[in-house]
């Protein structure tokens, strides 16, 4: 057996082990601390958990490609908010007045289109200017948020369309619409990353960019496509979420990038790119949502959730490093 096989197996299984640990912990602790009589591992509860994971989860799938590709996207929260506003606002636009409920698919398409374009814009800037993705998306995080405020100042944008709400609250085969979206997106992105040439090239670029360039892989267009994908997914996440809620605040989606990146890193994606899996990210998303729900279940408030998630993120990083240490012979630099 090659050295490092064990640590790799540990790493790829770690997130699922962690989820099991959480389940056991909250079930047991729930017996003592829980305010409700319901068991934590209740089936209904788990279905709800899947549904609540959807907004972060859908974006996290896109972030997995971006990070495997060796980039990062800090602007997803702002893109999410813009898409939400476009979705709700466009349904009230006079030009669509005659469409009746057919305005819904139009608004959806519009929101998705805007998200995709904003993502592609980030990608284009990264590609053509050579500025690091961190800085580009840091800038557009501010810029996109500015655009959000331009719609309606500091006031919320609301529009409730009952057909839309019915659709969003519908269940199919026992799963909520949002859950279906999460599962489908996960499947599609998994297919993209493991089965297609584009996905494999994304790994190659993140792993060894120079080698990829030398092999004639067009790095720039690949990055731009990936940014367009994450833009699309941020918009899709907004579409799924706001179809149900019907009201968006200009500050919505803030700190989403933090949650998303946490989920992706928890799921085992390498921060420097080249390694990571969609399945791992799915585990990361579930683990975070489980933690939020579980802490709520045993009576802890949001402050504890923030504290625990931050520390877990750091702990994961620490463990990862410990597993990669080569031993005492290593050069101490």
């Amino acid at each position, binding site marked *: 057996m090659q050295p490092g096989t064990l640590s790799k197996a540990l790493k790829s299984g770690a997130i699922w082990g962690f989820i099991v640990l959480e389940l056991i912990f909250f079930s047991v602790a729930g017996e003592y601390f829980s305010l409700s009589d319901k068991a934590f591992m209740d089936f209904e509860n788990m279905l709800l958990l899947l549904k609540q994971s959807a907004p972060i989860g859908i974006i996290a799938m896109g972030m997995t490609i971006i990070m495997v590709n060796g980039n990062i996207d800090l602007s997803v929260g702002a893109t999410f908010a813009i898409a939400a506003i476009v979705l709700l606002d466009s349904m009230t636009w006079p030009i669509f007045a005659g469409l009746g409920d057919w305005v819904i698919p139009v608004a959806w398409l519009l929101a998705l289109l805007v998200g995709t374009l904003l993502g592609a814009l980030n990608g284009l800037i990264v590609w053509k200017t050579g500025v690091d993705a961190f800085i580009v998306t840091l800038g557009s995080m501010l810029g996109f948020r500015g655009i959000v405020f331009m719609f309606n100042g500091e006031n919320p944008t609301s529009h409730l369309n009952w057909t839309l709400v019915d659709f969003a609250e519908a269940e199919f085969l026992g799963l909520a619409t949002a859950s279906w979206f999460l599962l489908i997106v996960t499947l599609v992105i998994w297919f993209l990353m493991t*089965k297609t040439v584009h996905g*494999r090239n994304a790994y190659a670029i993140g792993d060894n960019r120079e080698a990829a360039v030398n092999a004639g892989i067009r790095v720039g267009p690949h990055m731009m496509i990936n940014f367009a994908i994450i833009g699309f997914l941020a918009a899709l996440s907004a579409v799924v979420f706001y179809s149900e809620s019907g009201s968006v605040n200009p500050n919505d989606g803030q700190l989403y990038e933090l949650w998303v990146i946490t989920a992706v890193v928890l799921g085992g994606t390498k921060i420097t790119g080249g390694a990571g899996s969609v399945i791992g990210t799915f585990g990361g998303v579930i683990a975070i949502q489980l933690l939020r729900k579980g802490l709520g279940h045993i009576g802890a408030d949001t402050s504890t959730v923030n504290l625990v998630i931050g520390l877990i993120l750091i702990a994961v990083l620490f463990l990862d490093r410990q597993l990669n240490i080569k031993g005492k012979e290593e050069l*101490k630099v």
Partner: protein
Amino acid sequence: MTDAKPVLHLEDIVKTFPGVRALDGVSFAVMPGEVHALMGENGAGKSTLMKVLGGIHQPDGGDIFVGDDKVTMAGPLEAKAKGIVFIHQELSLAEELSVAENIYLGELPRKSLGRVDWAKLADQTNAILKKLNVGFDARTRVGDLSIANQQMVEIARALTVDAKAVIFDEPTASLTDAEKVVLFDVIADLQADGVGIIYISHRMEEIFKITDRISILRDGQYQGTVVTADTDEESVTQMMIGRKLDLSRNASHHEIGDIALQVRGLSCGKLYQDVNFEVRRGEVVGFYGLVGAGRTEIAETLFGLRDPSAGQILLDGEEVRIHSPADAIARGISLVPEDRKGQGLVLGMNCRDNMTLPQVEDLKTGPFVAEGAEIAIFDQYRDRLDIRTPGWKQKVGNLSGGNQQKIVIGKWLSMHPSVLIVDEPTRGIDVGSKSEIHKLLRELAAQGYAVMVISSEMPEVLHVSDRIVAMYSGKVMRTFTSEEVTEDSLIQAISGLGDNQAA
């Protein structure tokens, strides 16, 4: 072969960079089925020539012909499409991906929906791997392979296209003897298929074993092509450096003082074991061996960058434990490291700041750095080492390799160490600077420094050392004095044959 047309033909290639004429009228031709060596010292223009051939640089003059067609290369991919394939010295592999994906990087076979055709990919890859006779398959993750096997993956890339010419750049640098045999078989196979091979290497014995002709570059100028069978190492060397190779040994001895550094039974895991030697004041001890013999690792241990697993280090007869470079410096040890740009210099900093970096804490007036004292130190070593720079404000990254190396040497001389360790002091710098640095090392010994020189170049070791420690695979094979050493005995010792021969 005389009737055949060359597969690849370069004519009068000129390439200039600001201030430098990197290639000046280089012409040579590679015949089908020929192994054509390209030789020259570091900086002679080999790598520039290969970059021109690969389309990374465009030539300022001259023509490239592939078969009968005059071509311009727009990039490595176009070169490959035309049948010109490069096997790079530095591995350019994606470690997380499989062997197959690396071999077909950028050219994965497609199915509908942009899917990768895994079955086809595995078949094609395994066919190639079978030819190479390696012990791994298409699905193996590249990061799990040894360096030598990774090199094989790199070589396998050449076999994916219908290659007309394959360029090997120092392919054996990290291969064991057994692996070399496999590589030479691969080359022979390619040769039999009528592929032209350009073989770049410094290793004379390989050149004379497998090549048909040798073309030589010196300072960007084409020196001529010779038939390997009609020439010998000495004349090739002479063409490369413009004069005879100076294999003279160090003759002058200084007064040898006390033992400054003594190492007893020093081991560091698998890197090296049970190493014993001592260095006296006024003495230069050369460490000679192949890459990976453990010489650099010993230096790093002495400098506090590795923890030894056993053994003792004695400075002036007193046992010491060195935990960090700061410790080592405090005890009067200096290390001029192997990798000038990675370990020796902060390229974005100016010359003065780089030079005074290890002692900046001690150069203070009040709480501030004493810039006057710094400039004085810089001026002193600039004059002493003849460093050519417009001024101390110049960024080190803008200097030539030789001047950069002198900055590193100056940095450590200014610490007035009692033990000076230099690792590959003349790698990648021009002939003139080389002999200056050799002279300097001798002078330092004369002034009473204890000097350790690690080098992979035999002339260098012979030239500067009072004694030579020969290492092979983590062990000291033998220690020679400069009087008793001969080239043959030295080569035998570093190949692991020394003991048997002596016994």
